[in-house]
């Protein structure tokens, strides 16, 4: 049982403020992903959770107990460090075994657990090596192994897959999720990779400059991004943004932009004349005759199964549409596109906040 809660957390290094009034709670057994660009304070938040960094202001509680002054040793937290923090003088086996040794487990049990973790992590052949004899990816897996053998209350992962190749990364994503299903321990997982966040999280906490931008399930963030920042961050290729205005046509709200004339959901809380940004996901766009969007095809980019079609609407407005290949679209030609009105995201041009549909 472990519920981790942050109440108005502030953090400064000297006069440099990294974080202000951050509040968040992560429920027992939840797999929460802290997502954000490099430098936004993810590592700092994890290190404060582990007790390796002082909390400048606010309160951190685990299961309701204030943790601010509790020694890291007594927090029962396992952590995978961004820089691995392996024990340089211990072989891989001992690196993984150390926490078990400290707990005075029997030799056989330690051996069993370490071997089990090593097998999952493809480290069996390296147990007899020192960290300096390993590659970056192997070191990262040792760091993972060190956490995996723990049965801590809270698991913290700081970009634990950043140094692995694509295939191993996909494999490890599954392993970490399975580990979580098995242990049911509260987990906070840091990454800057939105695909990792989308595939693994129960809950995504999107951060920006030391603040929380949006908290929600992967579907929440993908389907109903609260801000243009979130919409831009989640999804690959990124959402298209086109600036324009709301018009009223036949009593229905319509988005009007460069070569776009999109009828919108009637229940949108938008005023005619309001300046807005229209967000269109590349995968929602469909080629159609007499579509509401028209432009010229600048480039057809192959990605394997799909192609990304880059479309110029005007000098300044561009779109990317993702389609199955063999669709006959050629660079240089003109194209017309449509999109279901439900799939259109609207943001106020000034606040960049989402314009909601009222029901």
């Amino acid at each position, binding site marked *: 049982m472990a519920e981790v809660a942050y109440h108005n957390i502030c953090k400064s290094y000297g006069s440099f403020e990294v974080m202000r009034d951050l509040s968040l709670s992560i429920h027992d057994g939840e797999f929460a992903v802290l997502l954000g660009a490099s430098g936004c304070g993810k590592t700092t938040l994890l290190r404060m959770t*582990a*007790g*390796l960094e002082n909390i400048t202001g606010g309160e951190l509680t685990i299961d309701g107990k204030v943790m601010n002054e509790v*020694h*890291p*040793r007594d*927090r029962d*937290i*396992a*952590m995978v*460090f961004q*820089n*691995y*923090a*392996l*024990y*340089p*003088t*211990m072989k891989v086996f001992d690196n993984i075994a*150390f*926490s078990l040794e*400290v*707990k005075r487990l029997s030799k056989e049990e330690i051996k069993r657990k370490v071997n089990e973790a090593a097998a999952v992590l493809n480290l069996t052949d390296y147990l007899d090596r*020192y960290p*300096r004899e390993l590659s970056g990816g192997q070191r990262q897996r040792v760091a993972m192994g*060190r956490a995996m053998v*723990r049965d801590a209350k809270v698991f913290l992962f700081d970009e634990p897959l950043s140094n692995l190749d694509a295939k191993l990364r996909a494999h490890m994503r599954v392993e970490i999720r399975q580990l979580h299903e098995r242990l049911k321990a509260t987990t906070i997982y840091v990454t800057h990779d939105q695909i990792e966040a989308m595939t693994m999280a129960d809950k995504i906490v999107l951060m920006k400059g030391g603040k929380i931008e949006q908290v929600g399930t992967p579907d929440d963030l993908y389907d109903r991004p609260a801000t243009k920042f979130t919409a831009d961050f989640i999804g690959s290729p990124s959402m298209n943004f086109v600036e324009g205005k709301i018009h009223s046509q036949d009593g229905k709200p319509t988005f009007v932009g460069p070569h776009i004339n999109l009828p919108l959901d009637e229940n949108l809380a938008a005023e005619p004349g309001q300046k807005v940004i229209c967000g269109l996901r590349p995968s929602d766009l469909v080629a159609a005759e007499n579509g509401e969007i028209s432009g010229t095809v600048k480039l057809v980019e192959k990605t394997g199964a799909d192609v990304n079609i880059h479309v110029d609407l005007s000098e300044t407005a561009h779109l990317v549409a993702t389609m199955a290949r063999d669709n006959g679209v050629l660079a240089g030609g003109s194209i017309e596109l449509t999109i279901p009105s439900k799939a259109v995201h609207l943001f106020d041009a000034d606040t960049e906040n989402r314009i909601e549909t009222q029901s």
Partner: protein
Amino acid sequence: MAFVRTKGLQGYITGDSPVPWLAPLVAMLVVFTIYPLFYNIWLSFHEYVPLKRRLVYVGTENWSNLFADPRFWEALSVTFTYFFVLLAIQVVLGMIIALLLDSDEPGFGLLRGLLTLTLVIPPAITGMMFLLMEDPEFGVLTYILEAMGILSGQDPILATSSTALAGVMLADIWQWTPFMVLIFLAGLRSLPQEPYEAAMLDGASAFQTFRRITLPMMSKVIAVAVLIRGIDLFRAFDYMFVMTSGGPGTSTYTLSLYAWQQTFSFIKWGYGATISLVSLVLILVIANLFIWIAKVRW
């Protein structure tokens, strides 16, 4: 004249051959180390005869005398006692003090700086200081040890064979433990911090952290300190020379002191050279044995 010399120097510096670079060092080595070493070996097969006022070949007589000489064996035993006891005390004490001083709190930098003070005092002066402090009449150490009940009033520290060596050791500990502390501190302060953070989260106690993390990471530093200090301790001379002259009896008689006495007091140059050679061989063997055993693995 001036530019001729410049030209010569330039040719010397820009030449391709390594010989000119090594020559000065090799020359110094030959003059100050190699030649004396071989002269010493040669000397150990000769003896100075004052009546003839010259060195006479005596074959292996010096060597056979040496191994039959009970004073040599006593000196060897004193030297080894001094070496092992002080090495152990200074390593352990040095490490404890270094760990205590390894802090970023204000004031600790000053404390670390103060450590160098004992190192700038000539050992002979330190010997004099401790001679005074251990004086049976007015010595402050005598007074304190008596007050603590460790010492009975009758026996002067340096004139009692059971305590004299310990009395000399005190001077060495006082002067050279800070040297250990300085080396250990330099090592401790350059250790990476991440393993300590990981150890905390792994639940390790302070002692477990020291034993499994700090000590292994410090092993190279400790090995260097032990080597330097060990060689020093093995040729201990100054303190006993000043404080006890080797007495009472042979209780503080080290090999170096014995060699010095034979060479310069008794003018037995050959015999003194023989003792020195044995010292040298022992140091070489111990040092290399240590390097081999302590071969740091990680």
